[in-house]
């Protein structure tokens, strides 16, 4: 696994498979876009980019980096009138960025918090503040 998270300073969660990463990436893109077609397309684009970078070798793909790419393109989705999400994912989608993507990354439970903080360009304390605010916004939106 390559990428910026190989330092000892970052706590490692238990290993997961490439399959888990792809599913988690899809969830993030789906919450960001509100459309499964757009999410699938985004996952493909992000994977293609990652494959290009690693000379088409899945073993060398920076899977954590996929989420950074997804976070960076969070505002690139066209606003869709046909939101296919329901229940909590739909409420999650209704949050403004970057709250939406940050909270989703937190809920995906696939990346260490330090890496989520790095992706969102914040400290761990700022990340905690964002999560708290986003969680409150989520609860309010649900009411």
């Amino acid at each position: 696994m390559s990428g910026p998270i190989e330092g000892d300073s970052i706590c490692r969660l238990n290993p997961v498979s490439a399959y888990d990463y792809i599913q988690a990436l899809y969830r993030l893109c789906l919450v960001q876009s509100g459309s499964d077609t757009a999410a699938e397309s985004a996952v493909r684009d992000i994977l293609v980019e990652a494959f290009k970078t690693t000379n088409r070798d899945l073993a060398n793909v920076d899977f954590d980096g996929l989420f950074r790419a997804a976070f960076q393109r969070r505002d690139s989705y066209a606003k869709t009138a046909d939101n296919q999400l329901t229940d909590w994912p739909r409420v999650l989608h209704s949050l403004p960025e970057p709250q939406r993507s940050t909270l989703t990354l937190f809920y995906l439970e696939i990346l260490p918090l330090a890496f989520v903080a790095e992706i969102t360009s914040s400290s761990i304390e700022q990340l905690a503040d964002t999560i708290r605010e986003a969680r409150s916004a989520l609860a309010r939106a649900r009411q």
Partner: protein
Amino acid sequence: MPTRLFPLIRPVYKNEPELELARTEARNNAELGVVLERQIDFDNEIVDQLRMLALSDARIEKLENTLAEDYGQPAQPPIITAPATAQLPGAIGSARAAQTVAQPDPEKKPEEEEEEEQPRARPLTIFFAIGVGLIATICLIGYIVWDQMNSFQGADRITDLLNSANGLTGDEFEAVQTTTDSLKDWFLLKNEHFTVPKEFAATRTIACRVFQFHNADVGQVMAKDDRELLYFLFDPADLGVQLKGGKWEIVEGERLVGGVTVVEGTCFVVAFRGKHDEMQTYLAKRATSANQ
């Protein structure tokens, strides 16, 4: 201040060193512990619903194929088979997430199956299939119409009649050397009333007989002009033959080819060894010579 990090506490992040102080604080403060418990319950519901969002195996396979087509087959095991085996060195994530995928919740199964895309034919393929079907149907209808136009009711019985002559030795006949026209009298003696087309009136006959064929009386005549001929004469109703008066039809048997017509209530068949075209030429020649 460790309490600032409370919002980040989740069971899955229990080993995160940044949260150690916050966790200790929560353990030592009952009031904070209750708040934390409520927070975790709230988050669990959302996490569970998020996990329900998943690409079906079919869509992952499709994605994998797209990547393989565009960028070559990945060197590592396919993504779709990855959950149990392909854990990448250095990969990080939650054990819970791994378990979720490796041992999918049975309750999710029907939903995932619903999501699986059925293979669909392209519109072009569908149109092509419909086109081929239509063309085949039109050809079939055309063939049936053509077959009916080139046939008539009772043609099969005529074919049988022609084939019945294959085993004749000649001994079955009574020598009657006259002209075909004069055969009327001979047939009258046999109590049959057969009429011969005028174009065959002058043909020399060699032998005749009347025999039973499918319970019908059939007159059979051996004749000769420029070739050996065999005539059959019978009441068309007896053998279920329906043909317009004066019109000639050609029927092919195993050895003989027959020209069939109906004249004054008699079905007349002239036959010889040959093919359809030869009979066509023969009948045309006969018609010409009769008109002269």
